[in-house]
């Protein structure tokens, strides 16, 4: 039982928190800009790499580098929107999706150019996990989950308490109605990138803390993150959180030896779990668990 919690459930919750942060952004962007943002994974990669020189070069702690990484990704996201997505605003949204596909590769190429193809870590060596009555938790895992919760609470307060947040939800629910009430769409779009980009940056740093940093970490997140957003219901940030946790935990638990002693599913096929859940959801209930929108 303890083995189950230590090696499957806890990593699942950690991974799920990271997925949730990415999925919130994907869901918000889909809700407001109406396209599946294919560069979201590579924005996470960017977050991980912005923090890297601060931690390795300047000796920052990862937690001090986190806000810088988030800010860096926010700026980049707004810049990318201005340069590559805004000019296509009045075209079919699928064209913006094509553009975001191109942005994904440009981002990755730029990161590879600047940092090289090798993998990196924030912190060398092994840190002893905290052990309480047989329960083993790595310190970084506690921090990842706590900081994710803090970010989600901040997002919740923003969406429900501020005028901008309310306008954002209004625009996602009914764009025409929102526009005639005088909501400035471009301002809301910029805020969408602030939230989506910031959370993607944080997710990238957390992912880098949990594993190692390669130029593909974000791209590999794309499928589970989309699956989480669909599972939660497109345009529903709270659904995306639930979706992220479900996908993350399901991926880790799929490797548990439920039957016999071998893993139920080979861990290399983890992302197939996300895909299977997504496919089942599309068949059974495309609006997602939280009654999002089907486009």
């Amino acid at each position: 039982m303890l083995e189950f919690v230590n090696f499957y459930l806890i990593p699942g919750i950690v991974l799920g928190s990271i997925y949730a942060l990415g999925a919130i952004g994907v869901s918000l962007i889909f809700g407001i800009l109406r396209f599946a943002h294919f560069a979201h994974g590579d924005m996470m990669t960017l977050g991980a790499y912005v923090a890297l020189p601060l931690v390795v070069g300047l000796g920052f702690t990862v937690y001090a580098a986190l806000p810088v990484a988030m800010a860096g990704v926010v700026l980049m996201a707004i810049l990318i929107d201005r340069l590559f997505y805004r000019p296509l605003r009045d075209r079919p949204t699928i064209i913006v999706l094509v553009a975001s596909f191109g942005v994904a590769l440009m981002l990755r190429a730029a990161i590879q150019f600047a940092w090289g193809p090798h993998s990196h870590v924030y912190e060398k060596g092994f840190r002893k996990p905290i052990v309480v009555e047989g329960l083993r938790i790595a310190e970084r895992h506690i921090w990842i989950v706590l900081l994710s919760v803090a970010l989600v609470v901040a997002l919740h307060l923003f969406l429900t308490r501020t005028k901008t947040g309310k306008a954002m939800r209004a625009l996602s629910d009914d764009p025409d109605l929102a526009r005639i009430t005088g909501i400035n769409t471009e301002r809301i779009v910029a805020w969408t990138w602030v939230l989506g980009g910031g959370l993607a940056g944080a997710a990238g740093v957390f992912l880098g803390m949990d594993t190692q940093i390669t130029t593909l970490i974000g791209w590999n997140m794309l499928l589970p993150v989309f699956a989480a957003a669909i599972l939660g219901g497109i345009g529903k940030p709270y659904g995306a959180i639930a979706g992220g946790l479900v996908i993350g935990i399901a991926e880790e638990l799929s490797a548990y030896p439920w039957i016999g002693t071998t893993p139920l599913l080979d861990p290399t096929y983890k992302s197939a779990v996300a895909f299977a859940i997504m496919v089942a959801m599309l068949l059974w209930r495309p609006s997602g668990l939280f009654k999002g929108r089907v486009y």
Partner: protein
Amino acid sequence: MADLATFLAYPVSLLTIGGIYAVMCLGLNVQWGFTGLFNAGIAGFFAVGAYTSAILTTPAHPDYLGGFALPVPVGLVAAMLTSGVVAVFIGWLTLTLRSDYLAIATIGIAEILRLIVKNEDWLTNGPRGIPGIPRPFEGLSPFQNNLAFLLLVLAIVAVIYVAMQRGLNSPWGRVMRAIRENELSARAAGKNIMARRLEAFVLGSMIMGLGGALMAHSIRFIGPEATEPLLVTFLVWVMLIAGGSGNNRGAILGPMLIWAIWSLTELVTRQLPSDWALRSAYIRVFLIGLALQIILQRFSRGILAERPPEPVPLDDADREGPGKGGSVG
């Protein structure tokens, strides 16, 4: 003769690979150009085709599935069939939903196929890949063989082009464009949207599978790097959009042009010191991405713009109008 062979070796290989990319672009053109279906998993269909044909045509090997040693044409046909089966599955799942879902599902299936290719050693020999894939015309000298293979590729491009051109100008092609331009009015006119979309998606994917198989036979080797989304999916997209999506000639010109630029710049960067050669590879990817953005924003019609199908005399259109679409929905 030998001098001529060395002189022509590079252009022949350039045209061969360009032609194979043209096959894939013609496949994507059916999906995106005609019907507006976004396929982000070209690499997946490419891999299915390439590995199907490779497994069926290579001699037996203890490490992976094989030993059928079937003739190359059988491999090509089988490649189209297996890609088609995968496409039916994906299409059936997602074609009733908005195109974004199709994009997500195709990228998902491509990633899973990439995992299978990398990890299932018994089937694909894993990271080591499958070597020794035969080519047709093996009896000829190397140069004559390359030339013959080029002619085969060009013939396949020509056949697909003629078929697609006829398709585009037929009632079928007009329904496709109608669905892309205005799904509601196409539905109101009694067209079966789902069936037409599935046809376009499956047909396009089968052609991509054929492209994958041709590539495997062309370079005589297939490994997991070939399924890297960048080299297949993205390049094919840029090629089609640059050439002019919706235009079959554009779907041939685009790949030829982009492939020429892609591999000629590689010739240049290969001369650089190795550190810079690696870095310039990233610059090339970045520039291709930037080129895509510029084309999308400024030259969205591509080099050869889409042309509407030839107008049909009114009474003809009347005759085929109602009967064609079948049941509603």
